């Protein structure tokens, strides 16, 4: 098992830092999967811990100038590591003005993902910072737990309004209640609602765009005969939702929100260099 990658371009370094920082805000530990073409950050929480899951994939060529890897075997040319994304994010914080970042899998005091960062200095010799992010190698037999989640058969799919707007609204609502009901219909109406014993606060967004899904993606049968005015709703832990909104460091082009009525919220963050999916299960009253 071998892995070695290099980023030289400062824009790529910063972009990668933002991706990692976003991931670190979404989960405490995650699985870092390496394949020859792509890298992934995967979270699949146990239902007991909230059941949130995340799937983030980045084509390595968008970030790395050099990317060499050798998986467990020729037919399973992949590496699965468990790590704390916050450590990775801290390591990359050193690299904000770096000339070069090398990432490699090393065996030091333990298995580590080593970030070897070369910084400019006042002299000819560079300053170097080395961060060893401890990792656990995930055995081949456990890989099955980290498969890409299937696209849910959603009832309603809308583009979220501007991130900043919705973030402010949710931040305020967070002070009122622990749960938020997000509902939307196929006309592009979306409401965010919190309830307390004394008050019910609803924010209504209108005329949101509806993403056009191709036929095979819209595999669900139920949705095609759904009334366009009928709201699909999901009651979720408001902290998870707010965490997702607040954690976005990558300036996504759009965020699609898919609702499976009474079951799950699925966010699809669209960006030219990466895709991020985030699933928040509903909570019964």
């Amino acid at each position: 098992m071998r892995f070695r990658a290099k980023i030289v371009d400062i824009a790529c370094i910063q972009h990668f830092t933002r991706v990692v920082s976003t991931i670190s805000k979404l989960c405490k530990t995650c699985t870092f999967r390496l394949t020859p073409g792509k890298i992934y950050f995967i979270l699949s929480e146990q239902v007991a811990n909230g059941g949130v899951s995340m799937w983030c994939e980045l084509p390595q060529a968008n970030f790395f100038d050099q990317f060499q890897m050798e998986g467990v075997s020729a037919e399973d040319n992949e590496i699965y590591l468990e790590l704390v994304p916050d450590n990775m994010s801290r390591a990359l914080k050193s690299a904000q003005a770096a000339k070069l970042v090398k990432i490699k899998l090393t065996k030091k005091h333990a298995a580590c993902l080593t970030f070897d960062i070369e910084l400019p200095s006042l002299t000819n010799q560079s300053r170097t910072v080395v961060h060893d992010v401890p990792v656990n190698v995930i055995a081949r037999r456990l890989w099955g737990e980290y498969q890409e989640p299937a696209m849910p058969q959603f009832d309603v799919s809308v583009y979220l309004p501007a991130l900043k707007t919705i973030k402010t609204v949710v931040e305020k609502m967070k002070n009122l209640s622990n749960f938020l009901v997000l509902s939307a219909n196929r006309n592009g109406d979306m409401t965010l609602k919190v309830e307390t014993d004394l008050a019910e606060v609803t924010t209504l967004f209108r005329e949101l765009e509806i993403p056009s899904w191709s036929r095979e993606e819209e595999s669900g049968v139920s949705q095609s005969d759904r009334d366009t005015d009928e709201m699909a709703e999901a009651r979720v832990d408001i902290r998870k939702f707010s965490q997702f909104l607040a954690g976005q460091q990558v300036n996504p082009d759009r965020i699609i929100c898919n609702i499976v009525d009474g079951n799950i919220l699925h966010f699809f963050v669209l960006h030219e260099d990466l895709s991020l999916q985030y699933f928040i299960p509903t909570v019964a009253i």
Partner: protein
Amino acid sequence: MKCIIPGTNIKVFGKAIHSLSKIGEELYLEPLEHGLALRTVNAARSAYGCFIFAPEFFYHYDDSSGGTEGEMEDVEETFKCKIQMKSVLAVFRSLSTLERTVDRCKITLDEGPRLVFQLYCKHSITKTYNLTFQECETLQAVFSKDLCPNAITAQAKLLTEVVQNFQLSLEEITLIVSPEKVILKNYVESEPDPSKVLHTQMSLAAEEFDYFQIGVDTELTFCLKELRAILAFAEAAGMPLSLHFETSGKPIVFSLEGDPAFDANFVMATLADLGSTQGSQSSQQQAINRPGTSMAGTSKTKRTVKKTQQQGSKRNESDIMENRRFQANRQPNRSCAGGNSFLPMDSGFDDMMNDGMDDVIAMGANEMEAAMSQETEQQRNGTSRHEASPERSASPEIPLELGKRPRTHYPDEKPTSHDQSHDDVSMVMEEEGEEEEVLVPGTPPSKRFRSMFFGISSQSQATQAPAETADTAEVLCEDTDDED
């Protein structure tokens, strides 16, 4: 004491207080002939900070202890006090505001009940802060920069950039130096699984430093929080920071020089661990052999010889007697070593500032400082040459020391436990002496920050002593024989 700080200097003064406030809870204020000293020490006594603002810093500076007692006005008797850091911080809270509005600041300290800060602001507004204080003795760390084999000077900005690579929550940082480069690492404790922790290491070429002299390759670990406090000041002042250090377990001194109006020194304890002590042993001898420290070298040998005699006789004698002699032997050496700062290597480069013990004594009152009072006792009982004893017990790893004048406080303190404690302390002193003089790696393993200051350290060492004595005594004899 009365002094007036001009408006242009108020920011520097305030920054100094901010920086000290990140180290200790109390601010020790002492008007000296050559300037106003602001000092602090942290609760663990592992870090000490001192600013001395020269008379040039002020519009007006008068260090006298107040006109009423002219006859008492020798240098020793200037009025010193300590105040709560919190209260003085309140005066200098918003530096940007102070800088804009304050025309001058008057500080008055006399026999009155309050230390008075008066801020003369624009529009004839005067803000007066009357702070309660406690009378105290001088707080003074024991250190000497001049004999340290390793000295580095770096721009504050460089060090700030280095420190930024480490997590804010990180407590201790390890500095590893060699003649080519400097490496800084986060110090990882063995407590939670070290293999689960992010390890960070940064290396800098020697050329990045303004001044770089490494006589002894070494590795030392010290607190990062205090370093950040120092850097905050140094960066604001735009001054280069000098580091003077020896080996692990010996204090590291950070100093800001170059401004005639003030200078600042910070002394931090470093972690002593067995491995690196052994490593440092030879290097320390190397250092001694280097030109320029020959005087220290010779006096060291002398001392070693005396020490050997000492050791030989020791076995058959009572510890108390031993201790007396021990100190008696020391005394001449001290003077032969040439006064204050040019002590032989073995005294740990610790500059002796013979300042008051009062503070320690005051702490002796707290039961936590029991060991300190033992030391005091010992000083009184063991010998009248009190100079040697606290230094002995303090010097190898204890950079801070509060004076060594004979005290007569607590005459009846621990009369029953006295012999016992005396015993322990003297043993401890031996070890330490041996450690420094004969350079045997007698540092006990895994005792974090043995370089604590006075009370705490002697306490902890006293408790360690019985366990170690047998072992180290053996080594000590062998080694001294070798040297003979």
